[in-house]
């Protein structure tokens, strides 16, 4: 491989970016061809059927609650309890149930507002986390500076520290500095994603060629230009993955907002729904069950949609980076 002459070297770093992207695609195609044909295992035909059946049963286990959620979002409270859970019942009140979400529910706040809060927290929190992870990952992967190893180990040491362990400490600090009920109190800690930094460092090390960075520097590009024009386009799939993971983390976060928000007007969906559940479960507030179920459905849809839309950019293999290196 050393002796091969440089054939038709693409000029400029834009072309080389494209070459790197092509290489990535080829690697994925090679991965697909990496499976050993099943017939080699000499399995009986029944085995394939049996294993497929196992998977189908588990899929049923996974999907049944979601089917229940969709079906029961169309029911009245009485029908939720009195009719069979996995089939529809008259009257069909889906739109009525959804319209209830726009109303204030006996002082416990408005669902739509919680939805807006969640979207805001998720967008700002995950967006900020992604930017910080991209910068830090690039800094750790493509620079060496005094203390860079120590700082990277410091980051790694927080890899498994969950937000649950920090939630009460955060509350104590917020009480001192007046961040209780502040959106920043929710958004800023959501930007801390050591896993994301680690993923981005791994991803950049593999997908942003150091030669390319050096070439751009020789062409006179500054550090920020190199980062924006070369590194960012190459790390895009990694960035989308980190963004999605952080959206899910913020969207689904329950413990932190439960602790730091005391006004129901700042609640995200998760805390709002648990408030509704408290009312519905103990039966103190009549008619809350349809709101709860329709609200749950509407909570689930955006995240699932986001995953479906961005699925082709989502790199599941990066998830493994978060646990194996």
């Amino acid at each position: 491989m050393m002796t091969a002459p440089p054939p038709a070297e693409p000029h400029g770093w834009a072309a080389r970016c494209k070459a790197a992207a092509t290489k990535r695609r080829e690697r994925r195609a090679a991965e697909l061809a990496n499976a050993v044909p099943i017939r080699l295992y000499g399995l009986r035909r029944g085995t394939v059927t049996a294993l497929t059946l196992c998977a189908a049963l588990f899929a049923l286990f996974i999907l049944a609650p979601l089917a229940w959620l969709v079906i029961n979002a169309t029911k009245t409270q009485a029908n939720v309890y009195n009719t069979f859970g996995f089939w529809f019942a008259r009257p069909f009140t889906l739109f009525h149930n959804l319209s209830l979400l726009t109303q204030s529910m006996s002082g416990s706040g408005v669902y739509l507002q919680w939805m807006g809060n969640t979207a805001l927290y998720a967008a700002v929190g995950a967006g900020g986390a992604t930017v910080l992870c991209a910068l830090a990952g690039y800094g750790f992967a493509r620079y060496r500076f005094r203390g860079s190893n120590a700082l990277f180990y410091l980051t790694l040491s927080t890899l498994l520290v969950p937000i649950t362990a920090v939630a009460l400490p955060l509350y104590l600090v917020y009480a001192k500095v007046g961040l209780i009920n502040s959106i920043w109190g929710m958004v800023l800690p959501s930007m801390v994603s050591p896993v994301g930094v680690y993923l981005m460092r791994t991803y950049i090390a593999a997908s942003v060629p150091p030669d390319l960075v050096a070439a751009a520097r020789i062409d006179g590009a500054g550090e920020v230009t190199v980062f924006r024009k070369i590194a960012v386009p190459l790390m895009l799939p990694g960035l989308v993955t980190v963004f999605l993971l952080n959206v899910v983390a913020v969207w689904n976060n329950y413990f932190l907002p439960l602790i730091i928000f005391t006004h129901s007007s700042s609640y995200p969906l998760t805390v709002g729904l648990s408030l509704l559940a408290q009312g519905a479960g103990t039966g103190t507030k009549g008619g809350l069950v349809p709101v709860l179920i329709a609200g749950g459905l509407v909570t689930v849809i955006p995240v699932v949609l986001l995953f479906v839309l961005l699925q082709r950019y989502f790199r599941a293999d990066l998830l493994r980076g978060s646990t194996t290196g």
Partner: protein
Amino acid sequence: MASAGVGVLSAPARPAQAAPRRPRRGRGERGGVRGLWFVLPFLAVLTLFMFVPLGYAIYTSLFTTKLIGGTTFAGLANYRQVLTSADFWDGVRRVLIFAVIQVPVTIGLAAFFAAIFDLGVAKFGRFFRVVFFIPFAIPAVVGALMWSFLLLPQLGPYTRVAGALGFPGANYFSSTLVLPTIILVVIWEWTGYNMTILYTALKSIPRDVVEAAVIDGATFSRVILRVKLPMIKPAVVMLVFVNLVGALQLFTEPSILSAFQPQAVSYSFTPALYVYNTSIGSGEYNLGAAAAVVLGLVIGLISAGSLAWRRRKGDLA
């Protein structure tokens, strides 16, 4: 890089490989502090929103606040109270029981499905992988809510089916059954995520290893148990750590389930609930801070264990 050679074979036009070898530049630019500017914003947020609060919680935990007399230094008294509290240990014991069941079942199921999808011995593998991963994107609050309704005493559809199958009147929120119910919900939530990680780990095993085993006459189950599983052991061990940390901070599922049957879930049902209820619930912030520090320490130890394990394996070179 193991893939470099393969890359040259399949794509001879690749420029970087063909270029004459230059002196290695290591990970990147040496010297200077330009890299620090990229890392600094993250480190600032990390410090302000993780290290500072943890430090402040430790400080707070050393004091007591009384209605009369104000705040006084108490040394380790709060820790003594937490560590001698039967309620706290009750919660610890419960999450340990939870972990002993949930972690192996989740990882076992995940490994089973990852293996059969990786080998392609079940049909529609791609479809199933997407379906299994869905609960990861669903808030635990909603997951727990759905399961609460499904298992509602007398009225839930699953309860009715169980009744028809000969288990009438089972109350899945009773104090004896609530923990198994939570385990079920958590398995529903996390198996797909674990499976996705194990699947990608299995996919990265080179084909020739498996081919060699098959040619040597290894049966299907031997390929999985003797060839593939040992090669993904690092991923499995890391998942054990991740799931263990998850188990220790169990909070959302029991607190949602308690909305339906408040007496089944005590205020110290899990350590995280204990932290929440002593501090936010009853205003004993110093005590809650001590409990949070204890919980954080245990999680920190597990983290450190996983880090040490990785280093020993040379994963973090």
